[in-house]
């Protein structure tokens, strides 16, 4: 396993998009996970932000995040379809092949499985002409879907080749979901893996999970669940997962510290993980955005 497999997420870093991308590159990474806000909040607008990303030479790991999408009906569903279309267009325009979709937290969303399945199948259909794969993630405070086996059940039933799972070690640790459940998941239907740890043993309530997830995550190797994170990666590698690992570290301290300091910690986390796993052969990777 080598550094090529890992990337940083702009949400971890302070500063402008240009500053963040430079920091990711300077830390030695070749890919970056982007948020829609990176583009829409750029001072020169979305098109200029897309140019900045394409000029950076970094490959875009994925684009986040479509929230509270599935399970709605009537005008709420129509509204979210419009939002999804706009997100898909931005995702395609910035050269990302993966759109991250988090399980719904909406009180207006049904938990009826058939409806969740058909909504995600519809989203996958919208994504086909744009060459985008939809990665569905179980948020640990999701209203109806909050553990990856539930998300996998929906993905499997939807049965669309461009619909798969996003796994986030934080959510798996927060809900203490058994990693053995991955035995039922096909490795080629995992489209993205996000890695983070945290500093305390447990996050029991949904409120604790939200608070920790949004403010107190740390890089793998910095928290108290390092062995579990490493075990997750080891298991994914053994399953045959050859996709990307993105450090999804929301941390209020990192968001106010120099990007060089944070980038160095991300680099250290990648080294920490690889030293725990051994090197893997350079896997198949999609080309850099800059090469297209």
């Amino acid at each position, binding site marked *: 396993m080598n550094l090529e497999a890992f990337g940083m997420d702009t949400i971890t870093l302070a500063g402008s998009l240009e500053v963040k991308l430079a920091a990711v590159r300077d830390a030695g990474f070749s890919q970056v996970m982007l948020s829609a806000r990176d583009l829409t909040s750029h001072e020169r607008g979305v098109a200029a932000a897309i140019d900045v990303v394409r000029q950076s030479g970094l490959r875009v790991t994925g684009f986040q995040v479509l929230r509270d999408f599935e399970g709605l009906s009537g005008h709420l569903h129509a509204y979210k379809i419009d939002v999804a279309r706009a997100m898909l267009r931005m995702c395609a325009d910035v050269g990302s092949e993966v759109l991250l979709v988090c399980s719904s937290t909406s009180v207006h969303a049904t938990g009826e499985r058939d409806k969740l399945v058909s909504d995600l*199948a519809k989203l996958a*259909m*919208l994504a*086909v*002409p744009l060459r985008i794969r939809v990665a569905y993630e179980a948020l640990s405070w999701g209203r109806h879907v909050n553990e990856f086996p539930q998300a996998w059940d929906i993905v499997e039933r939807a049965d*669309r*080749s*461009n619909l798969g799972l996003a796994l986030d070690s934080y959510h798996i640790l927060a809900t203490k979901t058994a990693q053995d459940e991955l035995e039922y998941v096909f490795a080629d239907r995992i489209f993205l893996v996000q890695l983070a740890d945290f500093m305390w043993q447990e996050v029991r309530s949904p409120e604790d999970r939200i608070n920790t997830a949004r403010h107190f995550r740390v890089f793998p190797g910095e928290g108290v669940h390092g062995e579990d994170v490493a075990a997750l990666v080891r298991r994914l590698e053994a399953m045959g997962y050859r996709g990307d690992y993105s450090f999804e570290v929301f941390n209020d301290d990192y968001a106010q510290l120099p990007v060089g300091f944070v980038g160095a910690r991300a680099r250290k986390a990648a080294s920490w993980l690889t030293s725990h796993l051994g090197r893997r052969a350079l896997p198949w990777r999609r080309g850099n955005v800059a090469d297209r």
Partner: protein
Amino acid sequence: MTINEHHPEPTNPLALSGIEFVEYATTQPQAFGAVLQTMGFMPVARHRSREVMLYRQGAMNVIVNAHPEALPGMHPPGAVPALSAIALRVGDAGFAFSHAVELGAWEMPTRVSAMELNIPGIHGVGDSLVYFVDRHGDFSIYDVDFVPLPGANQAPPAIAGLHYFGVVQTIGGDRSADWVDFYRHLFGFSVLPGGQYFGILPKGTLLESPCRNFYLQLIEPPEGSEDIEWDERLLRIGLGAPDVPAAVRALRERGVVFIDRDPVQPTERGALTQIYLGGVTFELVASHLGGR
């Protein structure tokens, strides 16, 4: 094999019954019209309000669109004629459109023009569109949108029994499953078993329409072609001929040039024309579909 040897009756949710027309976009309508005429397509009508011509041969209609105003969000036509749309004949165009959109198709932008029949359509591959056309009795879309050319035979006969056989589409690497999902779920296409091919270019994935009247061929980039440009788009049309050598002879007499070197020599299975106007080819495929 014979065409009717497959499986149980596939579902045909849209009551699809064939290709009503294909559309090319080009800024060279006269030059391309000359090519079409050598292929046996005769100009029969002109659009009432746009720089659009209708060509016909037997049961096949071809529309050549040189209208300079591109649809919103789409690229304007280029000099090289490009397949820009397939119109599918369906039982009820309004139903077909709403069914497709409900499943996640992108609505095409609408054109508004006086005296113009609105043909509903969705986005297909690349910049192309898929139109839905229904025909009830003697009424056809051409009666409303087009003015017959004075003196032109409105029913020019097919050369050597030529008829629509299918459309070839290039797709990205590892994208076959995505596009199979697209055509299967939106229209009811089914994948022909591996190894079952027609013509002289046996590759890719072959999809059969639910009406069994035509085929789509999906072609991923060949191995080792990472450096060549390989857009996702409609590449060419396939014309069925009950007797390919006879059709080749008849078309050669009209001035059509066929590629005559391995591996695409004209045979009784099929033939491929030279490239016209920098990017257009026509493929002949042995077929008796036209008699059905």
